[in-house]
């Protein structure tokens, strides 16, 4: 097999924004995504006229790449509409880096928005429901609960350890004025909250909010002129193992065990080089699985790893510094928010939640029911 030639550090995030965080009544998903995109361009000193590559995935528009180009009144050379669930935007960044490096485009805008909380109609389920599972009514939490139960069975992971993930996210959210859920949250609060799908309670489940996020990418040579501290894309990789939970080859091992090592190889880095992690925490079990699969602890040790506030502010490894999908924002596809928070940490603009001396940030997206995984390694100029 040919060795992958990822364009390490040759493309960078030069603009980023979040928008309509929490509740944005009256705005459509398209309005929100368009607004986030314009804010991200503003932050890079660029305009719509500069954008020649557009990547987007919206909840209510299968052809949102076309719709957003029309809304913006632009005619992109490259349009990406990859829909691997919440991980899609990390794959967009990988594809944008390749397109930029090949000279197919000069400025790539990746954007997303959804009014999941305040819209007055429910979004339809994604087309393509499994005819063999639908009759058993597996909602999203149930699929993740099946993985959590299996992890508890195989490795002795405890209810308390799952709750640690939610408590750490809340502590980070308490440092982020944009976070939707703030205030005290204890391990007991998480465990005694209403059950959603055993063993997961409502506090093990992500929020349902409105929100939008966007990132602008250019080639690295131009990045330095646009922004003091760009976030260079050092490596990125994606992998998929299944669509529906019954087909997951091993309920305790995600495709992050493939995407992570490949992304690290592209970047020439190891987990010990990472200063801050943004992991797609749709449910508490996700963080435990991804810490294991991405190589931050051995398989089965994730529960013990997060004990004692290890991933909370002041802990040994800062994870989900914005408060994550559990306490900051989750409009349905959270991946792009992991990218924006990684950029903010590298640029040193994260306010009270800023981690000291961030040079390498890991951003990880999840799609479907632990189905699709995509990992990015972003770095400061010092990592080039």
């Amino acid at each position: 097999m040919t060795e992958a030639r990822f364009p390490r550090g040759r493309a960078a995030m030069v603009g980023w924004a979040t928008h309509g965080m929490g509740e944005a009544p009256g705005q459509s998903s398209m309005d929100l995504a368009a607004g986030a995109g314009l804010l991200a361009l503003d932050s890079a000193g660029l305009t719509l006229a500069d954008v020649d590559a557009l990547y987007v995935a919206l909840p209510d528009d299968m052809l949102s790449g076309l719709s957003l180009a029309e809304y913006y009144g632009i005619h992109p050379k490259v349009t990406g509409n990859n829909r691997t669930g919440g991980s899609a935007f990390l794959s967009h960044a990988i594809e944008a880096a390749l397109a930029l490096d090949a000279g197919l485009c000069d400025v790539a805008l990746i954007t997303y928005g959804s009014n999941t909380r305040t819209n007055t109609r429910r979004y339809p389920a994604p087309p393509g429901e499994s005819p063999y599972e639908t009759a058993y009514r597996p909602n999203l939490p149930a699929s993740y609960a099946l993985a959590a139960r299996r992890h508890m069975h195989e490795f002795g992971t405890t209810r308390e350890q799952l709750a640690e993930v939610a408590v750490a996210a809340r502590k980070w959210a308490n440092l982020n004025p944009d976070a939707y859920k703030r205030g005290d949250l204890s391990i007991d609060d998480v465990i005694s909250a209403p059950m959603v799908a055993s063993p997961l309670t409502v506090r093990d489940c992500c929020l349902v909010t409105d929100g939008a996020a966007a990132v602008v990418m250019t080639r690295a040579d131009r990045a330095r002129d646009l922004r003091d501290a760009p976030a260079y894309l050092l490596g990125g990789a994606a992998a998929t193992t299944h669509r529906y939970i019954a087909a997951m080859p091993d309920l305790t091992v995600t495709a992050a065990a493939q995407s992570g090592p490949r992304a690290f190889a592209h970047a020439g880095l190891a987990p010990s080089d990472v200063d801050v992690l943004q992991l797609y925490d749709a449910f508490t079990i996700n963080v435990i699985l991804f810490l294991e699969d991405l190589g931050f602890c051995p398989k089965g040790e994730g529960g013990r790893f997060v004990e004692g506030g290890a991933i909370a502010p002041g802990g040994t490894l800062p994870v989900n510094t914005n408060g994550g999908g559990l306490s900051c924002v989750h409009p349905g596809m959270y991946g792009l928010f992991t990218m924006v928070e990684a950029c903010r940490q590298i640029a040193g603009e994260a306010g009270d939640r800023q981690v000291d001396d961030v040079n390498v940030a890991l951003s990880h997206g999840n799609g479907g029911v632990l189905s699709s995984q995509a990992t990015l390694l972003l770095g400061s100029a010092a990592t080039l």
Partner: protein
Amino acid sequence: MNQPNPEAEFRAFLAENRFMIQRSRSSGRHVFYPRIAEPGTGARDLEWVEASGAGTVHSFTVVTQRGDAPDYNIALVDLAEGPRLMTRLVGPGADTPGIGQAVRAEIETPEGGDPLLVFRLVAEGEAEQ
């Protein structure tokens, strides 16, 4: 192609009270859910065989509903033939199974509804048929 509509054939078997799965003639591997080719190899030599109905609980959850709607369970069952599937457990202990516990397939036909594959826990010591 000798299996133009695997889903329809599976459902037709269920309606006859038969739980059928597919098996590749070349590899001997069993396949569920039904499809037109063996996953991984693409071998287009799948044939229908009677499932033994025996399996074990791989994982399970009980879903809480809002309001007065009753809770319901969802389980993943590993069939003795290999494939894993999603199902519902019925009968005594259905909401509190042990992982690894033996189960047996049943076909349940709700009034006015389509036949559905469910599984019942096999009591310890119960003779395997």
